[in-house]
């Protein structure tokens, strides 16, 4: 007690009058210097930059919130048919981030606010919740015009089993899995100084079953490197410590050495130049190591080639006079190549027959003028890889599934309800779920990732209903050009069935594990 008495600052009568002055010096710089991509509207510190709306409480809104409150409300109206996943009300967890900007928030907020007022009246509590940005004792001053009355909120089910939201320092347009469940991301800025980062995911993502213990929820940067050109594509070369990247301004490839034990720097070790590569689109790449470390690369149909990574020797050169631009290529097995053109044709080739002519095996059924991209799934264990259908996605939202053994007609097709991509189909991405049969995810149209179950699809091409839509990115900050964030890429977790990683143009990287709504997903 003696110590306490001596050390309390009340000895200093000016303490309370002096300190606030000291602190007033800090808020303004806080506001100015706070990184623009962490808006944190709920931040208690950000006095000067609190958004014009009362910020929403963080974290609490997303799950379970209304359960104990259900009794306060009239029974929920039946969900509007076919809009369940798209309902803005369900996205409560995201709403604090985009405070004031995102439309769903505006629609959603007043109801919530009203309800809180009601609750306050009931409980007689006039104090604010700890995380609210608004001065609460005053009956909430509505700075937005009150929208027409809406039906009361219905209790939203939990949407995510787990959710991680990270902020990368620069946006990435690739998420590549590496050995030991590592992931790789890379910047694609035009100004140079792009970082290639190999990340160790949090323990929660490394195990198959969610164990109880997950000390951290953070990515660890295991190693990194600097690229002076934008990185648009990156592949690990299996069985080596090398990785290959490509990106504008030409179609050459860069080879990198992932660091040895004593350093955490990814060092450049050389380049694979391409003939007449200047002015060509950036090269799409795929790697395989069945016989030797090979990289398949090309930006147009007639420039597809396979190069041995270490010797830089050309082992295969496609013979084609067609200079169609490629949107993707893949190894189906050690020898079979699958190429996808931006206009939608699929080509098969055999690496054992160099100079073999390329033949288009399928043509898109949808209107031309759209850009296409493909997603190749890994077949069930032991089966022929060509038994897994190839999914092709167009910028118009058409999805066709093609069985490569019977390419004359498409297996199934559907139209996805997506807006036309604002980025010129640059980020178009479709991928099969490795551990969830028949499910695939698409992104690249806006700030969302849609998950579809294709098992019930037929060849009619009618509009399909997503089983889940991840909207988290849309509520983030704006990207470098000031527009709303676009999802640049997504990828499935190789083992965990309903876990995806997605990145957006604002630098956000989300890992989400959605909750299977009963009876809807196969």
């Amino acid at each position: 007690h003696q110590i306490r008495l001596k050390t309390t600052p009340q000895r200093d009568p000016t303490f309370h009058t002096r300190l606030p002055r000291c602190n007033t010096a800090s808020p303004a710089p806080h506001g100015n210097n706070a990184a623009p991509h962490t808006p944190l509207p709920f931040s208690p510190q950000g006095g000067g930059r609190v958004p014009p709306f009362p910020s929403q409480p963080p974290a609490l809104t997303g799950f379970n919130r209304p359960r104990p409150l259900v009794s306060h409300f009239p029974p929920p109206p039946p969900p509007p048919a076919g809009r369940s996943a798209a309902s803005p009300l369900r996205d409560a967890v995201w709403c604090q981030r985009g405070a004031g900007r995102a439309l769903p928030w505006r629609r959603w907020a007043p109801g919530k606010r009203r309800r809180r007022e009601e609750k306050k009246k009931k409980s007689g509590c006039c104090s604010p919740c700890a995380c609210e940005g608004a001065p609460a004792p005053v009956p909430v001053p509505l700075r937005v015009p009150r929208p027409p009355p809406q039906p009361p909120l219905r209790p939203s089910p939990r949407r995510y089993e787990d959710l991680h939201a990270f902020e990368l320092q620069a946006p990435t347009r690739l998420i590549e899995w590496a050995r030991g469940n590592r992931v790789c991301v890379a910047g694609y800025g035009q100004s140079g100084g792009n970082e290639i980062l190999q990340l160790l995911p949090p323990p929660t993502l490394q195990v198959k079953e969610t164990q109880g213990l997950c000390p951290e929820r953070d990515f660890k940067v295991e190693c990194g490197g600097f690229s002076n050109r934008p990185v648009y594509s990156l592949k690990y070369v299996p069985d080596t410590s090398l990785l290959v990247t490509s990106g504008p301004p030409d179609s050459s490839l860069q080879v990198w050495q992932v660091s040895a034990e004593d350093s955490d720097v990814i060092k450049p070790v050389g380049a694979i130049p391409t003939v007449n590569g200047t002015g060509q689109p950036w090269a799409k790449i795929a790697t395989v190591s069945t016989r030797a470390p090979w990289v398949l690369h090309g930006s147009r149909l007639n420039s597809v080639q396979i190069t041995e990574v270490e010797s830089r020797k050309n082992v295969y050169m496609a013979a084609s006079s067609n200079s169609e631009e490629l949107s993707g290529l893949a190894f189906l097995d050690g020898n079979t190549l699958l190429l996808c053109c931006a206009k939608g044709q699929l080509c098969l080739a055999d690496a054992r027959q160099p100079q073999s002519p390329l033949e288009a095996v399928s043509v898109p059924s949808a209107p031309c003028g759209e850009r296409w991209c493909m997603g190749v799934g890994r077949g069930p264990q032991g089966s022929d890889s060509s038994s897994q259908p190839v999914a092709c996605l167009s910028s118009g939202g058409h999805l066709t599934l093609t069985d490569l053994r019977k390419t004359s007609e498409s297996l199934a097709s559907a139209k996805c309800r997506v807006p036309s991509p604002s980025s010129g189909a640059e980020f178009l991405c479709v991928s099969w779920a490795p551990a969830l049969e028949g499910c695939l995810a698409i992104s690249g149209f806006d700030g969302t990732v849609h998950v579809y179950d294709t098992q019930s699809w037929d060849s009619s091409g009618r509009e399909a209903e997503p089983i889940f839509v991840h909207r988290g990115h849309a509520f983030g900050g704006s990207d470098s050009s000031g527009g709303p964030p676009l999802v640049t890429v997504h990828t499935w977790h190789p083992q965990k069935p309903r876990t995806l990683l997605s990145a957006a143009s604002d630098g956000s990287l989300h890992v989400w594990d959605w909750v299977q709504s009963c009876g809807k997903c196969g």
Partner: protein
Amino acid sequence: MPEIKVTPLGAGQDVGRSCILVSIAGKNVMLDCGMHMGYNDDRRFPDFSYITQNGRLTDFLDCVIISHFHLDHCGALPYFSEMVGYDGPIYMTHPTKAICPILLEDYRKITVDKKGETNFFTSQMIKDCMKKVVAVHLHQTVQVDEELEIKAYYAGHVLGAAMFQIKVGCESVVYTGDYNMTPDRHLGAAWIDKCRPDLLISESTYATTIRDSKRCRERDFLKKVHETVERGGKVLIPVFALGRAQELCILLETFWERMNLKAPIYFSTGLTEKANHYYKLFITWTNQKIRKTFVQRNMFEFKHIKAFDRAFADNPGPMVVFATPGMLHAGQSLQIFRKWAGNEKNMVIMPGYCVQGTVGHKILSGQRKLEMEGRQILEVKMQVEYMSFSAHADAKGIMQLIRQAEPRNVLLVHGEAKKMEFLKQKIEQEFHVSCYMPANGETTTIFTNPSIPVDISLGLLKRETAIGLLPDGKKPKLMHGTLIMKDNSFRLVSPEQALKELGLAEHQLRFTCRVHIQDPRKEHETVLRVYNHLKGVLKDYSVQHLPDGSITVESILIQATAHSEDQGTKVLLVSWTYQDEELGSYLTSLLKKGLPQSTS
């Protein structure tokens, strides 16, 4: 060249027992005086014999600065000041000064009373040590002596955490201590002005981490607590008295209020209660939101959270208990843990780091059967969760702080060197500053380039700017003047004024040069030819033909005489002062080339 020397005695490429020696412009400062929680031997405290082998520490150190009250930053302080012997000033912020002795006393009790260690500091030593402490306010410049001054900035990490700027003359070092760049529920974010120190010493505990958003972490935490409470289980949250406990209290309090939950929340009496008291006292150190609203309602007076009584642990039904200490190594949290461990409905959430050897560390590493005192085996059936809520800056935060402060050099402590090469390169690339990571005992020397202020007389400034073009702020400008160093001040004045002030007569330095020219004509004709030639070449200069037969170009004098032996050779005498050296040498070289053949 002036230099700054930095030697970490602890925390160099390592977490724990932070202690860094800085010697700047002849002043020696010790930053933090922490201990390592993981050791019980010599490695617990920094090796102070590095400072001096047998002399008095006070003679070698000008001051000690403590950044915040965590024991790995202040734990060795009583040992250092009372047992090793240091009588100089110790600086810390007011909240740190208030809370630090409580934590030290608590730790002392555990080591001496529970573990029975001797040769440890006593209560009296803690008290004596605290008498040497000088408390500082935020942004208050404290003059340690005539030359050394320190200034505290808000660091956010825990209550009272501060970054310190140490300044001697125009050289300065900023030490961040632990800091947090994202504001949380009860503390603000670290902030520093663009002070451009010569060296920024930054912690880098989370430098290689990309952190999950606070929102998602909290969501996970609340989800786990809520699930347990809903199924009727009890939740134990072992916490350190100060720091994250308050953050979690506010989080749960808000959640309980929103969800209208009825399960009781308790926090263990003693430390946490005292801690909350301090938060109430030092409300100005919390964030703006809490400061604003505390008149109506103090955020730290919780509605749902009540003091814990030992008997409550046996109460039926769900409850949440915050108990100290955080590593389950002793005290109330361990007692409650032993009571609840057998029931799989219950849950323990470890919100922080645990050192090896503690119960907390054992259960986190997956051990399910624990040997307690007296060979008792405790089977842990309850769920064990680990959530990291520590408020450290991650890589992005470190970059942000560097951008704010704009240092000329960066030094990282608290990190593994092997894992940080990338970060080092990144800092060097992005900010074009050198980055260092010394190990313990290793000295880093940083050469500074101190700027020296010089007063310039207005007359000289006006004269010099009148000569040249309009001054451009971005480009260096050459000025001519006389530098007078007198009475520890520097002044730049015009030469005339300097002569006048110092009572000196001006000396002139003249160069004279002979140039031989073949010209059979008369001298005055030669002069005329030279005159015409120069007038033709030097159009921008005033070339005059004086009646006495000499030529002047500006202030340069040219005379012609006939050669004593050879009448066909004329000797031109060119004479100029030192100030006109440039024009003079140009003129001689011009004349040496001879005159043009065509005569006018």
